[in-house]
């Protein structure tokens, strides 16, 4: 699982302090929990951003075609820079059978060890979630009076949260590690990272990974006498 992201931003008349504070300044969980009337299960968090510094603003806006070359460049840049309002929907991805990491049948490293092969496509549930997030973000930006709305859905560089593939659970047929992090198949193997997530969650995963690490370490400590039985 990854986190499919929809990123929308626009520009408002008011200064947004883009270069003066952390970019992400507000979170909303309004659409985080399941509401079947939306057409999908689970949900997403909105990260509201106050914009970016001048280099990123210039590079992104030129690539989007809203920052021109030539004489108009300076006037347009001064209207955009420090006035960006962004919303990112970070979607809770679900495990999909076809999304997996396997050994590549052809590609090997210099020692002949097969390379990992990652197969991933955004599932129907996540696609509907992204669509919902885009629609809500458009409404919010319109209500804020934003112009020059830019839509990146999904963001193409968003595969940075690598989660799942070794899910935690009590049933060896449906999970890779047990409820305290030990592999069902290999008794002296513990997996302590985002691989054991059962869904991706709709938030940045570091805090949850840290909590799982504490939990599994504590479980190991309590079971030291028969840890590998």
């Amino acid at each position, binding site marked *: 699982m990854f986190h499919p992201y929809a990123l929308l931003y626009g520009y408002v008349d008011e200064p947004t302090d883009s270069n*003066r504070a952390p970019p992400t300044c507000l979170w909303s969980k309004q659409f985080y*929990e399941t509401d079947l009337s939306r057409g999908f299960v689970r949900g997403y968090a909105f990260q509201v951003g106050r914009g970016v510094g001048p280099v990123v603003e210039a590079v992104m806006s030129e690539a989007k075609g809203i920052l021109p070359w030539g004489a108009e460049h300076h006037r347009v840049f001064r209207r955009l820079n420090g006035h960006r309002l962004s919303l990112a929907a970070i979607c809770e991805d679900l495990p999909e059978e076809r999304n997996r990491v396997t050994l590549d049948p052809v590609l090997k490293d210099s020692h002949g060890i097969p390379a990992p092969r990652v197969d991933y496509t955004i599932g129907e549930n996540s696609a509907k979630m992204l669509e919902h997030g885009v629609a809500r973000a458009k409404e919010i930006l319109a209500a804020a009076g934003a112009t020059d709305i830019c839509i990146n859905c999904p963001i193409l560089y968003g595969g940075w949260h690598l989660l799942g593939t070794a899910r935690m659970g009590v049933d060896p047929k449906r999970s890779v590690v047990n409820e305290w992090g030990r592999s069902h198949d290999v008794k002296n193997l513990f997996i302590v990272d985002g691989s054991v997530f059962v869904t991706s969650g709709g938030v940045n995963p570091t805090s949850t990974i840290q909590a799982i690490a504490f939990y599994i370490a504590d479980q190991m400590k309590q079971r030291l006498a028969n840890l590998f039985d």
Partner: protein
Amino acid sequence: MSVEITLNSLQRDDLRVVAGMIIPATVEYGVPGADDATIQSDILATLGRDAELMRDALDHLARLAGMPLANLGETAREAVATQFRASGGPAAATLTRVVLQCYYRDDRVLRSLGLELRPPFPQGYALEQGDWSLLDPVRARPPMWRRTS
């Protein structure tokens, strides 16, 4: 900063001209163009892993122009630039990104934008407080999250 020359003189000339087309100098805001000598030096000194795509971009530009860009008239230069942006792919995008990133970290440019010449952290900034009462309706409504057991 050590200066590593990775472009030949023709490529450097074309880079200077096209950079000035992307961001020309302006009296109105009192800033140099991206063809300014200091900004050009910064570009050359920090090309790093962008050097190969930058060379590809400048080779493509040279093919489109058929001669040094500076020798073309303004209309012909504009036509070449339009074609370059349309057909240059990742190499043209890299050239543009490198020009923009070096321009918008220049002290003179940052001053003209009203920015202090320092990163926001660790010193930070004191921001004016917004209207926190906007959140009152949010605080008043019931939780939309599940309680953990």
